[in-house]
């Protein structure tokens, strides 16, 4: 006997579990099928564990570099690392979050089916688990099966010597030397985390720069400088050719601008991106349309070519970010419940947990120009002029605001600096609300906080920030007045 539901969600990651809970809240009988961990990559081998380790790395780095200057002395000299304890703590963080998801699903009466789901037909799923095979049917399906790390030729993941991000987050011993292939955000987050823990890190990047296209170029410059300062070596225009075992470690062959080079390390981490899991679960077999990059084709309601099947998260489209998946999860649940919804967010904010953090919402200057905004107002405010940042001993970086010069409407905000990740939500709200520079500038921001930089950057774009020197107001051409209805 097949179990019947109104909605079956395949995958319990940040897209799937959120969709399932909202479906249940809307009174739909709902099941979620998960083959590995509740909370998906994000809570178990992605966002959350990496943030735990990054926090540890940051803390360790501060102990070593900031504490002595602040007058804090460690009793026996240097700080040391107990990697086993660090992993234990990291796992406890993940377990707690994953356990929370389980409680939420149960509390909302969502059926949790453990096993590997495969579409038998467009209306039936086979769920294979250690307990055997069962068939599940539903009026609607939500595919939220996510993505996985991309492998490159010659570097098959063995998670011993060649690590994916998953393996790189689960090392029980601290290596001395690491090679990271791929200078994107995952590679740099892992690389700088290990560098903070005292590991010698070399990043191999095929392109001419790190974080290419991932963030505002000026923000990237700040991070690139800091990487150098932290001791992370970056090889640009470098292609990883292959590897072999060498002693207890590895020897990686790299082609740097046509010259071959050998890098010795304990392990090599490969982080060249992620690809959608659209080759699984017989998605093609039931006739779902999949584009050349592996995303399931959907419309603005995330409805696939089968009108009763939806796809959300990494498997549906870029950007592959957990918060976008969750937003889509809620959206699709409400569409299934008969509400008129479409994905019309103006911005999916993005955060890169490198050192210092980068966070962005909306358009960069280049993007705004190619979107047809011919005249821009750009305001930048450095953390070096912010009291809180200086007192945190984290005064690198800046806030940059890009606005349409005609209307002063905020188009984009780019932050590189301390706690950029926590500051960007204000920018996202401003963009969604269609705020103008004056709205940010006239909102009283509490002192002394990092958030003041947002207000000051808006003031800077208007030409009159207080805490940096700008040309006197009466010597400049006046922009639109506060009441202009442009």
């Amino acid at each position, binding site marked *: 006997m097949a179990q019947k539901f109104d909605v079956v969600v395949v995958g319990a990651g940040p897209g799937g579990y959120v969709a399932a809970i909202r479906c249940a809240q809307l009174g739909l009988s709902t099941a979620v099928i998960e083959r590995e961990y509740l909370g998906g990559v994000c809570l178990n081998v992605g966002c959350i564990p990496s943030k735990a380790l990054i926090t540890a790395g940051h803390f360790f780095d501060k102990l070593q570099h900031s504490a002595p200057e602040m007058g804090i002395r460690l009793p026996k000299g240097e700080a040391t690392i107990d990697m086993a304890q660090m992993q234990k703590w990291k796992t406890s963080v993940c377990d707690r979050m994953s356990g929370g998801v389980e409680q939420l699903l149960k509390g909302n009466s969502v059926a949790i089916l453990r096993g590997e789901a495969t579409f038998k037909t467009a209306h039936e799923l086979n769920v294979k688990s250690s307990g055997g095979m069962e068939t599940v049917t539903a009026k609607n399906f939500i595919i939220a099966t996510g993505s996985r790390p991309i492998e490159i030729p010659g570097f098959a993941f063995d998670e011993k010597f060649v690590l994916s991000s998953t393996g790189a987050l689960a090392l029980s011993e601290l290596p001395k030397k690491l090679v990271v292939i791929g200078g*994107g955000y995952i590679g740099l987050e892992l690389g700088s985390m290990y560098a903070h823990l005292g590991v010698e890190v070399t990043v191999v990047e095929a392109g001419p720069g790190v974080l290419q*296209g991932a*963030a505002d170029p000026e923000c990237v410059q700040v991070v690139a400088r800091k990487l150098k300062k932290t001791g992370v070596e970056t090889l640009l225009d470098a292609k990883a050719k292959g590897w072999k075992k060498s002693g207890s470690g590895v020897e990686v062959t790299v082609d740097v601008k046509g010259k071959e080079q050998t890098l010795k390390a304990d392990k090599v981490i490969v982080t060249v991106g992620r690809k959608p899991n659209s080759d699984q679960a017989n998605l093609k077999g039931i006739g779902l349309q999949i584009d050349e990059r592996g995303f399931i084709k959907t*419309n603005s309601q995330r409805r696939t070519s089968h009108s009763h099947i939806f796809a959300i998260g990494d498997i549906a489209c870029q950007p592959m970010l957990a918060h976008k998946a969750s937003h889509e999860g809620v959206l699709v649940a409400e569409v299934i419940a008969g509400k008129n919804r479409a*994905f019309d967010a103006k911005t999916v904010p993005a955060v890169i947990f490198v050192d210092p953090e980068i966070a962005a919402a909306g358009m960069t200057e280049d993007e705004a120009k190619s979107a047809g905004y011919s005249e821009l107002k750009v305001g930048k405010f450095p953390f070096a002029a912010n009291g809180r940042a200086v007192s945190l001993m984290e005064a690198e970086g800046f806030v940059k605001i890009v606005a349409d010069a005609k209307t002063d409407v905020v188009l984009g905000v780019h932050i590189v600096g301390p706690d950029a990740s926590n500051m960007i939500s204000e920018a996202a709200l401003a963009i969604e609300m269609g705020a*103008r520079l004056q709205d940010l500038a006239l909102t009283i921001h509490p002192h002394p906080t990092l958030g003041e930089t947002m207000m000051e950057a808006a003031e800077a774009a208007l030409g009159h920030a207080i805490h940096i020197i700008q040309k006197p107001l009466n010597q400049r051409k006046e922009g639109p007045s506060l009441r202009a209805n442009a």
Partner: protein
Amino acid sequence: MATKNVQLPEIGEGVTEGELVNWLVKVGDKIEPDQAIAELMTDKATVEVPSPIGGVVKELKFKEGDVITVGSVVIVVDADGAAAAAPAPTPAKSAAHTPAPQPAPAAFAKPAPALTPKPAATTVATTVAMSGGTDVYPPPASSRVLATPATRRLAREMGVDVNSMNGTGMAGRVTREDVLGARGAGAVSGGPATYQAPSIPRPGFVGQGGAMEERVQLKGIRKKIAENLQMAKHIIPHFTLMDEANVTALVAMREELKAAGEKAGVKVTYMPFVFKALIATVREFPMFNASIDDAANEIVYKKYFNVGFAADTPNGLLVPVVKNADQKSILQVAKEITELATKARDGKLALDEMKNATFTVTNIGSVGGTYATPVINHPEVAIFGMYKIQDKPVLKDGKIEFTKTMNFTVTADHRLIDGAVAARFLKAFIHRIENPGVLMLDMM
């Protein structure tokens, strides 16, 4: 260098040419695919002409004022410039670790290459090009639309396309009120908004001030009346037709029945007769018992007859409703009218007793005036006026005869009801009211 000719696309059914009003680009400009390049005036509307391809504008083929025929080359574009202007989509590998801070649909969305009728759209909506998927209406808000997330959602739920709205807020912001107004004014679901509500001006009044003027807050029933009438006048193109009926026979009949009514404790006025004559006529002309669902772009014909009547009360105009008046006798209708009117005067009407009228009768004649042009009680499409009975000399067969006459008006929603139809309706109604015996034929 790949130069490409951009031709004038089809601009609309039956439109073969247009006059170039002005260029929106100049030589050397970088343009995006589907960017508007020129404004063209046709005999139907002024439209923006988009270029299907992006690139750098090399040549403008016409001068402002020229007449351009469909299919002729309008501009020449260097398409290589497009590659420089807009980088090719990032390949999967690098894109996969790119947390691009941009709206996600951009991943495979492309702007709809639509010709944009002039006042309607300020931007081109981003729709997801996907074969096999169902199109979503309204299309998702373009990232250029200034509307808060909550307003965007309200618009979607009301079937209003925010992309096609001219916001009245600062910097062109689409406000909650704009959306509510667009719905009330006839934005339709399932298609583009056909009518935009201009914002209603709210001018202040500066008088001489002082003791010679008294200011009272506009509130309560008066405020509601103001809003309802404003909306009705705003949405409905009204017209009124007037005629006179010889009601000598009706007066005689009513005199007869009045006494019978009194025995039953019911005051029989002329109104129930008018109700009955109207219902019988409306059955022949169902468009008078209809509503326009602007949101759905549909006409709703009602198979039930709830008759509202205007009641003058100390608080202002109220419209109580006699429900299912077609299924009630003249005596029952008369009784109900009296009860409802009393409740209205005493301010005791339940909300439900003022709801769901299918058309309304106003008996302004009981107060005075020979004719009026009443305002339709939206979403109804007609209101009928009855006026005072007068003795009039009428020339008949060469002799002067004294008759009882009564004036009637029909005020209708011209969107649904043509003038001739209203005239035929009024004629049929007057035939019934002049010959009240005929009403027997319609009795059920």
